């Protein structure tokens, strides 16, 4: 719903069945070359769907998915590139306030790994720290066509302090999201500005900028 303010009241509005009413919301952005499977990775995570021939992204502003890490409910607001990465036309808004990123490359395609490194650089330039970055080697199910060795990717990830995982949209992808969730700071809110609001929201509503309410 467009008029629904996010985050601020989420914990209170939607009790998740436990004693703790603590929901941490994080903005997570996806990056990577076109057609490396960014969208299918997320759809698998959010909806448990997999389509052999996933169409280019249309229609999703962002998807949200709740997760549970120990006693904390974590909710990802996942932003898809909407194809704007194709001609290097991602807007600064995309990176703004991102607390986590998954940079996706194709295991059977060396170019996409090179591009992934560039996206990591771009993230360090555009996003404000601290940001948790995970590198995802996708299409692990096509291992017989593997070009990017896991050791190579792992070495790069270690040097740049990234999480790394090989994923396949046909198999479980939850692990990578869980790993990110564990690494994100789930501290108490640092008291955001009270007058910030979303248009359409009631004025007192505020956004939990990556922290808990």
């Amino acid at each position, binding site marked *: 719903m467009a008029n629904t303010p996010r985050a601020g009241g989420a914990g209170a509005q939607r009790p998740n069945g436990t004693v703790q009413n603590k929901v941490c919301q994080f903005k997570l952005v996806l990056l990577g070359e076109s057609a490396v499977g960014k969208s299918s990775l997320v759809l698998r995570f959010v909806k448990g769907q997999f389509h052999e021939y996933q169409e280019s992204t249309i229609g999703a502003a962002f998807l949200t998915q709740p997760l549970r890490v120990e006693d904390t409910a974590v909710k990802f607001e996942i932003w898809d590139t909407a194809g704007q990465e194709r001609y290097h036309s991602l807007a600064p*808004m995309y990176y703004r306030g991102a607390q986590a990123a998954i940079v996706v490359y194709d295991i059977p395609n060396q170019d996409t790994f090179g591009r992934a490194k560039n996206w990591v650089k771009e993230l360090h330039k555009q996003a404000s720290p601290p940001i948790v970055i995970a590198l995802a080697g996708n299409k692990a199910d096509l291992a017989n066509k593997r070009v990017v060795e896991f050791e190579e990717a792992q070495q790069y990830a270690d040097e740049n302090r990234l999480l790394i995982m090989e994923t396949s949209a046909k198999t479980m992808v939850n692990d990578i999201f869980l790993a990110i969730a564990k690494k994100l700071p789930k501290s108490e809110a640092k008291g955001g500005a009270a007058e910030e609001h979303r248009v359409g929201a009631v004025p007192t509503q505020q956004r939990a900028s990556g922290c808990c309410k």
Partner: protein
Amino acid sequence: MDEEYDAIVLGTGLKECILSGMLSVSGKKVLHVDRNKYYGGESASITPLEELFTRFGAPAPDECYGRGRDWNVDLIPKFLMANGSLVKLLIHTGVTRYLEFKSVEGSYVYKGGKISKVPVDQKEALASDLMGMFEKRRFRNFLIYVQDVREDDPKTWKDMDPHTCTMQQIYDKFGLDKNTQDFTGHALALYRDDEYLNQTAIQTVRRIKLYSDSLARYGKSPYLYPMYGLGELPQGFARLSAIYGGTYMLDKPIDEIVMEDGRVVGVRSGKEIAKCKQVYCDPSYVPDKVEKTGQVIRCICLMDHPVPNTRDALSTQIIIPQKQVGRKSDIYVSLVSYTHQVAAKGWFIAMVSTTVETDNPENEIKPGLDLLGPIRQKFVSVSDYYEPTDDGIQSQIFISASYDATTHFETTCLDVLDIFRRGTGEDFDFSKVKLDLGDEEQ
């Protein structure tokens, strides 16, 4: 690029991005191109600060300005009316999800060298230092009349049909003096000049209602301002367009708009030609299809303090009605600050702007600059105001007008909706936005 599109949009200013979004949502195949490396065109917010200094040919900023990346400086100052058309567009299209806003803290009007808070409700009117005791009562009666008017209910008109009476007649009926008329017309109804006095009153009544309805939404002023600057707005609508299938290319020079029998058939960049049925663009892409109809002067002022006499407001607007300073059009002052993530900690950005009337425009904005106190750095620009020479129906090239001197986005939205209507032959159907798509399971 060598493909065929329903529409090619040139320039990523706010108007073009809203249009691109609406076209994509309506199912059109859209290619959206900008010659610049960044989104926003004329309505961009410039970042980092070094870029702004370079743009105006100034030597690089020194350390006192903090981190350059903390700055997002608008080239065109505007606020959103909390209940205005742009907010409605943002909500209906769901673009509001990408943005956060703060309400502007104060709204002031200039009278006799001083500034006073704009009174909007009866209580404020009675406390205002803009009017004497008897005038306050007359103004209060006028406000009650405006609030009570229902356009289709003659009983609420109190023998003054706003559809036939002029605004001047209404003012006279309530016995309002020239000063009160001045701040009512310019600070509440937000007219830039006095032509409205001889037009029917209904427009002014609507505008005053918009002001007070907007004020009622968040309290301190009727205005909203987006965090990180106005440049976020075009980016938000561009994302909407992309989500509905629009293709984006920045940093792409446009060399030719290809015509056949007086109609557009494509756009050429270098050796590539993208075919299309329609082009939507800002005036800078079609210099031979627009005419200059005026000029706007804007002065960006970097300051390390708020505007004096505004109770240290971190954001504010001051309107200097034309008559107060012997002009034909108003002077506008707007202020935003580090609290909007547009400046480094402790810094403020003021903007003074007006429609140019003389050949010494810098002198024209002096009354505005004089209100600001010490200014650390000033950047002055005089921009030509362009309008398309035709309605685009023949050529299928639909051109937006330049951004005018108004302080809000009402005229911007009117232009956009009008262009959309001309281009598609119908009004934008908001129901085509699938608000539930990709959204939470609430």
